[in-house]
């Protein structure tokens, strides 16, 4: 009898008190952390500059999925400083001009607290000055060396992914020792590719090797065979890094060019991000090496953090979407989004961030960070942040294609990627 039950329920004062205590105890349990009532329970708005269209679209799709998976995880942990995080996405078309407009729109239209998430280096370089003028903290996930080079400003930070200079410096010894000393480089002809060209050339020379030819290819190119005859015959190692929608064509045509007489090949997985390694025409890659920011295929010694991270985004052990095994992720890069968002959380909490007037405090709090332990927040590995150059340093992975899977052969140490500071952003005024 429903009515009887209701009428029977007359809570005594004691019962209410025990009930409240129990409720209080539950809040202390992990996994049930309601938002601590801060001064405001308004969400913290993070403007997410995403390459939804244009040549960066494949990365954009996965940066988006990673971000949208990280946000609820962060909210379950109590949000940012007790306030829920809200992601506001805007497409920048992988276009520098549109990028600056998007940053502007975050500031004036969406009133976001910060801007975040840009990958392609030309978009970062195009957007960062506007973020600086608007005094908007701008957290990029780009790999470009432009942050640490001192080219940008105090408002731009890269705490989630290592820059190219550090990556290639860490890996050059492996290339020189195991693959060969005469290297031909193939890279996209814009800022990111030029970083590879300049820093790898220097790094391999430091190892006693040399770059004997440099092939710059426009990132919008669609056919590549015409470039390959420029590869000198005496090449021992091909170093390739390519971006854009035609990456698969690039790698396939490279295989067709060499046939069975290929030199050693060391590629950045960028050349095959979001591409299934089982695609017909890629068989020749068996035995070649790739840089990976984070191993696409779950390795034998997979950490619990890697497991949690994959499950949260919905990525299987082959780095593809759990709902569609053909939908391969940009696994080597997108961890940067996850880690950057967690770093933003840590920074906001350290700064006691309340609103846009605390933006400078947030930048200072992130600048004060140093060690980041391997954890659920940093599944790619332990890192060190350099507050002066606004750049993080992390481990790099070198994997070999074995039976159509990437198997990690070497993990670099953090120190392998260190280089002298080129800028001290902390001396700049806000």
């Amino acid at each position, binding site marked *: 009898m429903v009515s009887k039950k209701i009428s029977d329920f007359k809570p005594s004062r004691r019962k209410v008190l025990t009930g409240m205590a129990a409720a209080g105890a539950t809040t202390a349990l992990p996994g049930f952390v309601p938002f601590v009532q801060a001064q405001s329970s308004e969400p913290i708005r993070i403007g997410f500059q995403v390459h*939804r*269209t*244009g*040549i960066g*679209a*494949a990365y*954009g*799709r996965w940066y988006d999925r990673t971000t949208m998976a990280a946000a609820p995880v962060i909210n379950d942990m109590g949000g940012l400083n007790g306030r829920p995080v809200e992601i506001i996405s805007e497409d920048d078309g992988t276009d520098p001009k549109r990028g600056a407009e998007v940053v502007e729109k975050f500031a004036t239209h969406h009133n976001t607290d910060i801007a975040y998430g840009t990958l392609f280096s030309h978009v970062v370089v195009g957007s960062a000055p506007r973020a600086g003028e608007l005094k908007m903290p701008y957290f990029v996930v780009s790999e470009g060396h432009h942050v640490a080079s001192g080219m940008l400003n105090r408002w731009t930070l890269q705490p989630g992914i290592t820059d190219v200079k550090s990556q290639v410096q860490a890996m050059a010894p492996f290339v020189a020792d195991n693959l060969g000393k005469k290297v031909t480089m193939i890279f996209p002809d814009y800022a990111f590719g030029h970083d590879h060209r300049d820093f790898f050339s220097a790094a391999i020379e430091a190892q006693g090797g040399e770059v004997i030819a440099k092939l710059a290819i*426009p990132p919008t*190119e*669609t*056919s590549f*065979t*015409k*470039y*390959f*005859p*420029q*590869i000198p*015959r005496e090449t021992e190692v091909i170093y390739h890094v390519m971006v854009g*929608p*035609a990456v*698969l*064509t690039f790698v396939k045509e490279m295989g*067709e*060019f*060499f*046939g069975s*007489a290929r030199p050693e090949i060391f590629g950045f997985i960028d050349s095959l991000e*979001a591409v299934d390694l089982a*695609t*017909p*025409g890629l068989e020749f890659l068996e035995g070649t090496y790739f840089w990976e920011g984070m191993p696409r295929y779950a390795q034998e010694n997979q950490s619990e953090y890697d497991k949690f991270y994959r499950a949260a985004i919905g990525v299987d052990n082959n780095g593809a979407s759990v709902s569609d095994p053909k939908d391969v992720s940009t696994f080597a890069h997108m961890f940067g989004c996850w880690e950057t968002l967690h770093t933003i959380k840590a920074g906001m909490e350290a700064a006691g961030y309340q609103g846009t007037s605390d933006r400078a405090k947030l930048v200072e709090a992130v600048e004060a960070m140093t060690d980041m332990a391997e954890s659920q927040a940093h599944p790619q590995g332990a890192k060190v942040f350099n507050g002066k150059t606004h750049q993080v340093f992390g481990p790099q992975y070198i994997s070999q294609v074995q039976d159509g899977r990437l198997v990690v052969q070497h993990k670099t140490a953090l120190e392998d990627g260190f280089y002298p500071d080129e800028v001290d952003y902390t001396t700049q005024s806000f």
Partner: protein
Amino acid sequence: MEFGPHLILAVLEGLVQASVLTLTALGLSLVFGVMRVVNVAHGEFFMLGAVFAYWVASWMGGPAAIGFVAALIIAPVLAGLLAVACDWLILRRLDYDPERTIVATIGMLYVIQQVTLMTYGPDAHPVTPPFNHRLAIPWFEFTENGFEFYYPWGLSTTSYKLFVIFAAMVARMGIWLLMAKSKLGLILRATQLDGETAQAFGIPVERVYAFVFGLGAALAAVGAVLIVPIQQAHYLMGHDPLLLSFIVVIIGGLGSLRGTVVAAILIGMSNGVISVFFTPTLAKILATLLVAFVLVYRPQGLFGAKPA
């Protein structure tokens, strides 16, 4: 790479480019010749051909060859039908006015591109070629033992690329037969020569226009289906073919099919050869420069008729 093998490779690459370019440019030239419409959306029909090919091939499943053959038939038909619909819905209502159709086709360009982005998505997808074998090409040299053949490093092509060159030749032959030998070709040529008189003789000019617009789009789509196993289907892939087709059509003479074929082979080959020996940027610079010279010194194009 030595000069001889290098040149062979350059010529082969140029031929593949030229083959696809002739088909695309023929479509543009045909539409302009018969309808006097400058179709700025032509590159998007090329792109649609590639996207439809991907859809058909992945929907068919099964062996790659079956999917490809189905795509080669279905994709151009679909692109052509869509173009016919555009003609009936838009161009016909503008009375094929030259200025207004340019603006209308610019609009079509963006609508087609954005709808593709919304449905097909921003990613590039490959179509598996029906067959693809690497063919090493022998070269000769004179040694102490006399004349010898050997296989130079990197000198190769694929069976599929040779097929593209061959298939484009067949398609060009088909167009020539259609235009020169069939009754339909006679009607098309009559309409091209003088639309009003043709109408007076009972030719349903509006239907001819719709057919030509569809045929032009279908030709671009055939080129795209041929190239999509080498490159990939992507919603922005229409830009380059449009630009190159315009270059070809201007050099060859607007509306002249013979001029279009000659100019396409010239531009495609020089593009390939210059790209291989120098840079692709230089190839584009030279092609654009040639357009400027043609426009200044021979505005009707190499094979175009002088305006009356």
